[in-house]
């Protein structure tokens, strides 16, 4: 079980990274994160949407109403220019944390 603080902190970079690959919608985003993390990152479904709306309000992503294959209303999200920049900053920061962690880990085994 991943701590909820980590889940919350990683939500934004994960969503931005997924959207950087192309337009998507809430349900698909959750499914993909679940699948890619082997079921370990299991968001409460409803919690994704406030994050999406927050990102939209900050101008990082944009939304449009479209239709699903079965003709149902569906809201699609895609990355905006500011979103790409925000993602880059996220990536740098996460890589930094990661490199510090793995550097320390290596030293333990030397």
């Amino acid at each position: 079980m991943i701590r909820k603080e980590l889940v919350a902190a990683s939500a934004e970079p994960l969503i931005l990274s997924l959207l950087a690959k192309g337009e998507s919608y809430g349900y698909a985003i959750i499914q993909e994160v679940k699948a890619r993390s082997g079921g370990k990152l299991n968001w409460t479904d409803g919690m994704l949407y406030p994050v999406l709306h927050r990102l939209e309000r900050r101008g990082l992503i944009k939304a449009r109403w479209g239709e699903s294959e079965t003709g149902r209303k569906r809201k699609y999200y895609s990355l905006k220019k500011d979103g790409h920049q925000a993602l880059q900053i996220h990536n740098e920061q996460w890589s930094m944390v990661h490199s510090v962690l793995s550097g320390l880990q290596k030293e333990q085994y030397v």
Partner: protein
Amino acid sequence: MFDLEKSIVNWREEMRAAGIGAAVLDELEGHLREEIEQQLQTGLNLPAAFGIATRQMGQTAALKAEFSKAGTTIFEQLKQLAGTLAGTHRYQLAANMNTIATKLEPRWATYLKTAAFIMPAACLWVLSCVFILPKLQQLCVVAKVTMPGPIATAIALSDLLRQNLIATSAMVLLTLILLEWRAHWWPNYRRFVFGTVMFVLNSGTLLLITALLIMAVMVAAHLSGEK
């Protein structure tokens, strides 16, 4: 017998009561339906699939707290403001994607209310056309005061409406008949449209009459100064 549509309507109602807006609910409902379909494919029955999907969606209170952090866009706030001013406090229910239990106001009620609310504005307008306007224009001429642009425009508009009252009424009536007859989406927006039009007309009339009265006082001051 488990009724999915009814359960979803109840679920929406519960979410709405917690303060989650209609646009968000439309999105969440789409998600819920997809999750239910997914669960059905794994062989669950409908009530169980609905139960899992709503549980997975999260507690109403927790959702509400998260959404209040996200806030609403200016456009949504404006839309809500317009809805409130138009007197359609629950207008969001009229525009959701449910086809059942939309709780629409009956047609006669909307028309009756509209007629009642337009009466004061219409009476004031007629009164000002008959008594205030001609007098004011006369005063302006005597005092050699030109009317300020916006007021003159408003008066010109009001004159135009007065001269073409029959044609305008006929056009409005024809549009309404056409909408009632042909537009299947019209019932969902009827109350909102009427509410908004009433609000604009009423406030416009009040503003115009206030402006006319202020104008009259100013012209009067000018007149006594001349003497």
